[in-house]
């Protein structure tokens, strides 16, 4: 009963209070590298969410079997397994997306969000809440990634999801380049800190 009630609480935790990207500052590499277009961001978010849910679920199921001493190695193997699966599935069924994400799909293995959730949540909690935690953290990651990607795609390429927006007006290419990635992410985190500060001040 309690678990059903708390889905919203989970969602709020994953998306707002403990957003993996904007608040916990984890998983910076994929956030920067795959946010040049919204489509890439959504693809990356979906892939990472899939891995998060599966690895959290399995690690939680095995939490009493995996020996404490080699737990990190075991987690990495499990995560790498799921990453390889999603990599192969994407190559087979969405080759264009798989191509544009390239190297960053196998690199989900070393995305700190996934290992962090495995270590700090899934290894201590029951399977169902762990899977839920994976799902909500994944949503939080995807939303953060999409925010950055929306700004970068509109400013950097003048398009959104590939549709032309400004009818031929030259876009600010800078935002599609690596430098723009750092800049946009920096301003987003500053905004989050500003909002958090103001909220704290009101109390």
């Amino acid at each position: 009963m309690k678990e059903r009630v708390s889905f919203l609480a989970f969602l709020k935790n994953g998306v707002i209070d403990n957003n993996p990207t904007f608040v916990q500052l984890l998983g910076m590499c994929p956030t920067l590298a795959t946010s040049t277009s919204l489509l890439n961001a959504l693809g990356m978010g979906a892939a990472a969410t899939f891995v998060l849910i599966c690895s959290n679920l399995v690690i939680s199921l095995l939490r009493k079997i995996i020996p404490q001493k080699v737990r990190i190695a075991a987690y990495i193997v499990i995560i790498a397994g799921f990453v390889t699966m999603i990599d192969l599935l994407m190559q087979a069924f969405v080759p264009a997306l798989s191509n544009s994400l390239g190297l960053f799909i196998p690199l989900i293995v070393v995305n700190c969000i996934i290992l962090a959730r495995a270590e700090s949540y899934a290894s201590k909690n029951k399977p169902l809440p762990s899977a839920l935690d994976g799902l909500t953290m994944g949503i939080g990651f995807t939303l953060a990634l999409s925010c950055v990607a929306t700004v970068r795609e509109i400013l950097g390429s003048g398009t959104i999801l590939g549709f032309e927006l400004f009818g031929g007006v030259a876009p600010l290419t800078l935002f599609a380049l690596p430098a723009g990635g750092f800049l946009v992410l920096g301003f987003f985190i500053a905004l989050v800190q500003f909002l958090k500060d103001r909220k704290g001040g009101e109390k």
Partner: protein
Amino acid sequence: MASLSKKPKSDILRLSVTLCLIAGITALLVAAVNAVTAPEIARRGELKTAQSLKAVMPEADSFEDCGYSGGDITSADGKQVPIDGVWLAKSGNETVGCCVKVSPKGYGGAIEIIVGVTGDGKVAATQIVSMSETSGIGTKIQNPEFYGQFVGKSAGIAGIKGGTPLKNEVQTISGATKSSSAFLRGVNAALTVAESINGGEQK
């Protein structure tokens, strides 16, 4: 005493057995996914190649793999351009030209291009099979204003950065020099290969 000295050993054994089991099961699961996806990936690849071949040589009704084994082509600026395949384009029994698949290295890795070359050594059309160039910048090589320039040009095309292109010159894309010159290298390499094939065919 005996049990004391034995304990760490059995501990290590237990650790490694658990870890190996996890790794083994993961590998098996991945193998299962691979068994499903591998044929699909191969099928999609072949389909994509077949479609691209048709797109660059619409007048041909069959394509015959030449089994090219001449290795990489070194471009004018000393870079290696890998040749992935060469096909003779046939309309009925008559050879109307050939298609060359090249993969020059762009900004985000190899750009796979199929170039259709007419019997007299001119570019008929080009088609990008896959690439992972920066969205909004390197992807400009997909614009007809860029790749359209190559149609009708013959071996030894030169790239210029500004001004009006002369007879066998094309304009590279400012801001995407690396991607557009990779494309240029690829087309030139394809023309070089086509020359040797077409030449051999006439004799």
